[in-house]
């Protein structure tokens, strides 16, 4: 446990100090504030425009941070050879993966919370009322990104950092289209493709199902039980992805 905590703290400090991260966050904040301009040409729908475009900006920039930082986490340690020093100490490879992930979770929490609160306050000022569903949507985006981060870490144990980042983004996109894959399984006449698309449907995280961005603008009725189930599903998913990453990383030779 101490090993995980040590790696977590170290990873958090390392990633939060990254200047690229700061640049991306500043850019995201500018994009969110840019929603003010869009709101001004919307015939009185400023609040709605701010919420919608703000959440999109938060998702996109959150994804960029999550994927690129997660993809480089393991590789950086290997390339800098610091991993050898680390493993000469009583740190297991599983604890290393777990610590890296939890540390990044902390960084992402700070990044997403910062952007989310900025958006929340901006919407409050523009629309004149606080939106609880907006904060809930931000939390759900964070949970989605955690799943993408776990998958990206899994890919980073298999191949290069760039490949892992690209595949991480692909998983995010595919996760948005998950229900289409299911529709394909129903349309398919060929049993092989039917089985294959069903497997893909099960393997890819169903991100579109756990998205409540539409709820922030009153297009979706939200039930706590449903949200709890979605969060549990994604948490279970990321546990499996991290366990796989740990297994692969344990067998890896440097």
């Amino acid at each position, binding site marked *: 446990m101490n090993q995980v905590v040590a790696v977590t703290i170290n990873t958090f400090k390392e990633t939060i100090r990254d200047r690229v991260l700061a640049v991306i966050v500043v850019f995201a904040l500018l994009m969110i504030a840019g929603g003010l301009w869009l709101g001004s*040409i919307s015939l009185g729908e400023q609040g709605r425009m701010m919420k919608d475009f703000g959440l999109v900006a938060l998702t996109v920039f959150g994804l960029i941070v999550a994927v690129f930082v997660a993809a480089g986490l393991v590789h950086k340690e290997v390339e800098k050879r610091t991993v050898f020093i680390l493993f000469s100490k009583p740190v297991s490879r599983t604890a290393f993966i777990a610590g890296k992930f939890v540390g990044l979770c902390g960084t992402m929490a700070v990044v997403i919370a910062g952007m989310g609160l900025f958006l929340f306050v901006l919407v409050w000022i523009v629309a004149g009322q606080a939106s609880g569903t907006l904060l809930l949507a931000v939390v759900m985006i964070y949970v989605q990104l955690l799943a993408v981060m776990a998958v990206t870490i899994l890919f980073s144990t298999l191949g290069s950092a760039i490949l892992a980042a690209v595949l991480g983004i692909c998983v995010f996109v595919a996760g948005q289209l998950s229900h289409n894959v299911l529709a394909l399984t129903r349309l398919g006449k060929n049993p092989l493709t039917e089985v294959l698309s069903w497997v893909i449907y099960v393997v890819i995280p169903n991100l579109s199902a756990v998205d409540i961005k539409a709820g922030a603008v009153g*297009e979706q009725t939200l039930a706590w039980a449903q949200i709890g189930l979605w969060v549990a599903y994604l948490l279970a998913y990321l546990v499996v992805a991290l366990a796989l990453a740990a297994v692969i990383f344990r067998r890896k030779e440097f």
Partner: protein
Amino acid sequence: MIRRLFAIIVVMACAAGVVAYQVARPAKAPATPRVFVPSPRFFLDFSPSFRTSIADAYYLQMVQYYGEHAKSDGRLDSLPQMVDLVTRLSPHFARAYLFGAFALIDAGRPDVSYMILQRAFKVDPNDYRYPSYLGFFVYHYGKGKTKDLVAARWYQKAASVPGSPTYLPRLAAALLGKGGETEKAILMWGQVYGAGDKYSRQKAVAGIDRILPADKAARMKAVAPLYGTMPKAEFDALIAELFKGYK
């Protein structure tokens, strides 16, 4: 020194070229009345998580498109598709329905406007604005002898929505009377009288008086259905006003 000066001159010349091009080029391409509007199905299938954001983007485009064409060539060929796309991606987007409905009138498509508002009312039956605008559109743009009655029915629906303005039952009652549905009009005016303020009561009395026959017996028969539909004290007060001057 010369090399540095040369570099500065090159940079300055490039900067001047960029500014000159931007200043000289036309501000914007001439707007075309027909623009490509994708099917809502496409976005619902391929981007369900971002459907409201896409709806917002197209809503902004719709407003721009209307602004560009309404006052210039008056051609709003793609507006029906735009309104349809935005409202299908975001079915509770009230402003898109209302703006779209009025813009479609300008586009010469009150039929589409009517359909859009009907869909809106189906999605949000607690918003009185949709049926009241439907009534307005039927009354103003409808054709045929029954248009007053159809409009009155929409106003009746609007009036039955909790929190709707008090003028809606008056409108409904007036149109019912105009359309020939005397009994329904009297009942509606009775509701206006029972629930209204002094102004509404005056309107209700005048409205019923206008459609009632002059003969006392026929008048009595016509107002009989009101009995039991409103509190007795108000019924008595209304009857007293309607039969003022009768012996």
